[in-house]
């Protein structure tokens, strides 16, 4: 007789959602967290999109620990001294049911895990799952690092993050290629609330989220900048192989981005309150492991469910979506008394029919496109060059035609039309 119906490893958004669904289905569930509180090991570089919470926690926007509601989204393309920004704002994202919010992950994750414990899940903090307990090929529990720390269950849900040692131990990852990962670094910079409101042109609890391309020097990647109530979060996402091949160190790249004339006026005068770093499963669909085996499911970052597709940078919503699906599938399997791989197959089919796998499959090519040399270096140069020529007044010279500017700028940035066409076609297939 196992100790408990289900063990969820990791009390991040995926684990909390899984434990919440299991507890609501009347199952006994232990939610293990290796940090002293849920969220203590977690960081991200963006926005929590809460639509997935509508069914899970109705009215979530009234109680979730949100910093600001994002009503302005901007994509900035920059070169060393230029920046071209597409800036969109809508007031409708600033009122219920809202769209996205900035939040501190230690606050947000602890809140969501609190929902699971309210529903009856038992949260065990400061407890690292060090390995799997197996009976033949079947996962029957986990070993923790507490004294007498073995724990058995009918089903284990591994939500143990991007490094998921449990999924690797179960043999669900065929191999790990560093090219599939990026590392994110971030500074949280304190500024008075009024200063943030003024610099970013927002009021009250409204905020801004910038995605930035062309700011990472010799390392492929991207940047982000968003507003919290009285801090800014500024960071970079950097390709691991390029960093390892002797690229510039992360904090130096971050310093350079903060000195860029388009960014410096936004961040200057602030005090760094916290520095943080985390690895991101960048490659999405193409690096996903097997999602289940006998007695175990994998969800969230552990299953590489993180969407890093240029203008879309999402992760928390995929974690919650996959975690909730895992929780429901596990509850159904427990009800039927079959938690073998076949019994748990409902998990994959749930994900297939939801945004979690649909978005990932559709955008499977996006990470390659975004990290390509064309998107990283040549297109920012081209776009900024064209914009500069378009807006420059060369009197008494007459205005040049767009076609001529394009031809000259293509040449100046070493961009081959052939590459642009083939990339555009791929992009159209991916994003279209």
């Amino acid at each position, binding site marked *: 007789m196992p100790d408990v119906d289900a063990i969820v490893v990791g009390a991040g958004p995926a684990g909390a959602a899984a434990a919440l669904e299991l507890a609501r289905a009347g199952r006994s569930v232990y939610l293990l967290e290796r940090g002293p509180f849920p969220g*203590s*090991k977690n960081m991200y570089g963006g926005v929590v999109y809460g639509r997935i919470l509508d069914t899970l926690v109705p009215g979530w926007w009234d109680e979730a620990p949100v910093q600001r509601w994002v009503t302005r989204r901007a994509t900035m393309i920059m070169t060393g001294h230029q920046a071209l920004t597409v800036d969109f704002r809508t007031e409708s994202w600033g009122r219920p049911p809202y769209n996205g919010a900035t939040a501190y992950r230690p606050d947000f994750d602890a809140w969501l895990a609190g929902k699971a414990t309210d529903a009856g899940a038992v949260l065990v903090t400061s*407890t690292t799952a060090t390995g799997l307990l197996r009976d033949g090929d079947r996962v029957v529990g986990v070993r923790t690092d507490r004294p007498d720390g073995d724990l058995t269950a009918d089903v284990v849900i591994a939500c143990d993050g991007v490094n998921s040692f449990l999924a690797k131990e179960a043999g669900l990852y065929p191999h790990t290629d560093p090219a599939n990962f990026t590392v994110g670094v*971030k500074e949280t910079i304190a500024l008075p609330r009024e200063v943030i409101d003024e610099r970013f042109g927002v009021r009250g609890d409204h905020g801004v989220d910038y995605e930035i391309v062309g700011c990472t020097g010799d390392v492929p990647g991207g940047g982000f900048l968003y507003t919290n109530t009285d801090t800014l979060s500024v960071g970079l996402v950097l390709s691991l192989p390029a960093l390892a*091949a*002797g690229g510039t*160190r*992360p904090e130096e790249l971050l310093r350079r981005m903060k000195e860029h004339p388009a960014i410096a006026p936004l961040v200057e005068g602030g005090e*760094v309150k916290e520095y943080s770093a985390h690895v991101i499963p960048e490659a999405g669909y193409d690096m996903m492991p097997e999602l289940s085996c006998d007695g175990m499911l994998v969800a969230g970052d552990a299953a590489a469910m993180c969407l890093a597709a240029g203008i879309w940078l999402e992760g928390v919503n995929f974690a919650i979506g996959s975690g909730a699906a895992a929780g429901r599938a596990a509850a159904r399997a427990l009800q039927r008394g079959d938690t073998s791989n076949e019994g748990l197959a409902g998990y994959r089919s749930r994900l297939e029919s939801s945004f979690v796998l649909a978005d990932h499959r559709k955008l499977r090519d996006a990470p390659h496109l975004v990290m390509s040399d064309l998107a990283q270096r040549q297109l920012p140069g081209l776009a900024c060059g064209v914009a500069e020529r378009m807006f420059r007044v060369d009197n008494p010279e007459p205005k040049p035609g767009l076609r001529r500017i394009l031809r000259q700028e293509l040449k100046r940035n070493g961009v081959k039309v052939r590459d642009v066409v083939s990339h555009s076609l791929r992009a159209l297939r991916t994003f279209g």
Partner: protein
Amino acid sequence: MSAGTYPEISFEARMGSVEFRIDEDRAHITVDDTKCRDCSTRGCITACPANLFVPTADGGILFNYEQCFECGTCYLVCNREGAITWTYPEGGHGVVFHRT
């Protein structure tokens, strides 16, 4: 840097902004630096965001585990099988984020 702006903080001050509950008993990273001596890339040195890996004069690698973000970059980029052994620190220890 223009006048009137704050100077960039030192790396020590940057890392000083983060809370680490250090496990005095066990290092969760170990490096077998006999394997590092014939490693030509040494990706861990530039890639580790906490700058925990330092080359030594005799060709080895000196490492620290105390201010580790537990991100996993080092073992992911390490191209010498088994040179870096990396596990999570004991429950309750290691980095504790507050504002990320």
